[in-house]
């Protein structure tokens, strides 16, 4: 069944996307069109089929436990929006 405004609002909240009213409206229509397209999946019988997560069936490669990364704070924080005393600043986190 098609998505409602409430569904889109929930998804937008989960995805941390601030959708303005009219944009949410347009998005709702487009999302339902896209969902209509992917609905076709349901028709296929896939009982007993192993899901394919990776295109190649390789095993995880493990690296040796070595410290290889020097301190690069200076460079890594060059483009940071808000930094103080080496910390990234965000609006107060409430717990």
């Amino acid at each position, binding site marked *: 069944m098609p998505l409602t405004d409430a569904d889109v609002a929930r998804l937008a909240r989960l995805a941390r996307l601030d959708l303005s009213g009219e944009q949410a409206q347009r998005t709702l229509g487009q999302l339902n069109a896209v969902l209509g397209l992917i609905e076709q999946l349901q028709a296929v019988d896939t009982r007993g089929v192993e899901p394919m997560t990776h295109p190649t069936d390789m095993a995880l490669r493990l690296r040796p436990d070595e410290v290889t*990364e020097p301190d690069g*704070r200076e460079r*890594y924080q060059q483009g940071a929006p808000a930094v103080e005393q080496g*910390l990234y600043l965000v609006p107060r986190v409430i717990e």
Partner: protein
Amino acid sequence: MQWEVVIGLETHAQLATRSKIFSGASTAFGAAPNTQASPVDLALPGVLPVMNRAAVECAIRLGLAVGAQVAPRSVFARKNYFYPDLPKGYQISQYEIPVVAGGSLDITWEEGGEPRSRTVRLTRAHLEEDAGKSLHEDFHGMSGIDLNRAGTPLLEIVSEPDMRSSREAVAYARALHALVIWLGICDGNMQEGSFRCDANVSVRPLGQQAFGTRCEIKNLNSFRFLERAIDFEVRRQIELIEDGGTVVQETRLYDPDRDETRSMRSKEDAQDYRYFPDPDLPPLVIAPDWVAAVRAAMPELPQALRARFQAELGLSAYDAGGLAASRQLAAWFERALAALAALLPPTDAAARQAQAKLLANWLLTDMAAALNRDGIEIDAAPVSPALLARLCARILDNTVSGKIARELFAALWLTPGAPDDAVDREIDARGLRQISDTSELEAMVDAVLAAHPKSVEEFRAGKDKAFNALVGQVMKASRGKANPQAVNDLLRKRLAG
């Protein structure tokens, strides 16, 4: 109404690796903010995770130690949520197929003076990455984010809801804490957050099968807080229900200052983690020969050690458990026992067990107290295994009494690095050698009898207390050096005469 408490623990153990789980950044504690945050830890555009072999090995060690299944194939998944200390917007963890499944941990504790024990079942243990830290001290109304800890390898060890009291939960946490340190996979430093517990707590009417609604208390980083938080939460839930309310499943935070738990609503809002297998990380495959290699390199485990101490040395479960509390203590004990056996080769099993029992007593009482008082570890004790062995040897061969031995121990404690023969030199220097020589003792006994005719009369009149008084007088006259047993025998002989 009688309530039953049901507790399960989720424990996060920071694994003792040099580098992070998915990057080559250092895991050392206490560096300046963000100086140990590499591009991978910062989730800069284009970076990819690469798994640390040592973290996997730690998981295998734990799995083998608790008799669990080490999964031949396990899967890393993404747990999606937004939080400033989570740079990627998802945590790489294991969800459907963890690296370790099942297993159990034997625990012992006391409840109202009664010794209790239980085998707590483990659900699973899985590898995941730690998050960074949000520093709340005020940056003009902002929080500061330090990502040094982001990507530190964690092993989350999940128990079944098998525990029935806060003390039992603490016993489990302590046993697990001791085990991960024993295995060398975690430094166990709770102040630095290397070992933290989340407690799932619920209550149900005694006898009821179905579980009550549980609350999860997050991030308990001390055994005391763990016990206090559970006790508070249990009271809260019982009062709530008895007042006709119902418990809401939620995440709660323990506030040590107020000694209470409170709801963490900020993390609750419409939570939907959207787990899915991480496409950047193929399945973790652990070959049987790797597991075999790790097993071959495992230290003797506390359980096996306790069993051996009881079977071979005839130690009580309590003593064996005490000695097996840490790998260092157990090793120290075995070194001292060997030294003692060298000094006084045991003639039979009974003699061997007597030596073990005496050493165990000393380690778990006087030694433990002294270590505790000075706040040092066993390996830093000023009294060496050889010295303690020598001291016990002198007790066993009746050179000194236990009382004198304590004085000697106190003296030795103050002279670190004393040579092995220091015990004997001290005994001679202070003339503490116990008097078992009969002629010498007879003289003292006769003197005491002559000096206390009243006590003698009272004894003959049937007052046993008088006898003890006379023994005391003789010991006093010998300045504690008389062999008490010998004094007893002599007095009885004389008074009978």
